[in-house]
């Protein structure tokens, strides 16, 4: 139990350790949310062919009927709001993920130098910050776009 509390405190509270800690926390939360959405998405798209009981070619009209019913069930502002948040998370996780892959291969990091006070760690290079903020900006753009798709906020 205490491990779980420690985990929640260290994984989910990014304050005071700089931008990278924020990226770590956001990457983790968005990753878990996307993975859970993925499972639900595979379940809901399974309705296209008529639901979980269908394992052979179903009648066309039956499949269409089941899909229309599923669509009606999914047409809920709560689900739409979830998709808006998900759009932000997907774009953040993707672009920030590219940054992490590059960094894990040492590509966008500064070279080691003799440290001189005050220290500016080369692991937090300028290009890293730029990519982080690009991912946040693109994610925000995706959020606004999906707000328009689901709630028509940009249309008069």
């Amino acid at each position, binding site marked *: 139990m205490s491990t779980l509390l420690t985990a929640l405190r260290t994984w989910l509270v990014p304050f005071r350790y700089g931008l990278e800690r924020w990226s770590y926390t956001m990457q*983790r939360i968005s990753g878990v949310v996307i993975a859970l959405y993925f499972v639900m998405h595979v379940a809901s798209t399974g309705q296209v062919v008529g639901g979980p009981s269908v394992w052979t070619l179903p009648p066309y009209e039956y499949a269409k009927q089941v899909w229309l019913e599923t669509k009606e069930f999914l047409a809920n502002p709560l689900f739409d709001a979830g998709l808006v948040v998900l759009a932000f998370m997907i774009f953040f996780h993707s672009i920030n993920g590219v940054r992490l892959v590059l960094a894990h291969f040492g590509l966008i990091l500064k070279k080691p130098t003799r440290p001189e006070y005050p220290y500016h760690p080369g692991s937090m290079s300028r290009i890293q910050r730029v990519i982080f903020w690009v991912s946040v900006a693109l994610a925000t753009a995706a959020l606004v776009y999906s707000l328009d798709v689901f709630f028509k906020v940009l249309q008069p």
Partner: protein
Amino acid sequence: MRAKTIQLLHYITGLGILVAGGIHLATVFLLSPYEASMSFDGHPLSVIAVYRNLFLAATLQALLVLVAFHGFNGLRTILSELHQGPTYLKLLNAVVIAAAAVVVVYGTRTIVIAHLLGNA
């Protein structure tokens, strides 16, 4: 598999998802209006039309496998940080592989049947 190999696959699947997921999002949102994409048939990029197209269906199949690996490996990583010990890790690996297999099999069934349904 060595942890190192899994980690490399995690990067490769992640980059693969960028491509496959990009195509998927583009077909649903950019190349046709969202309402049309969600309709069962009657539009060039409606649900059944997408599954019917071999390239797009193959993209969805690839996306399914890539996200299943990347996502479930991510969840496994997080859960393996929560607790350690050989028994726990073995159990965790077994559960994660089983869950991923169920999702992949179910998703593959959808794609294959929907593809055949579109061509029927």
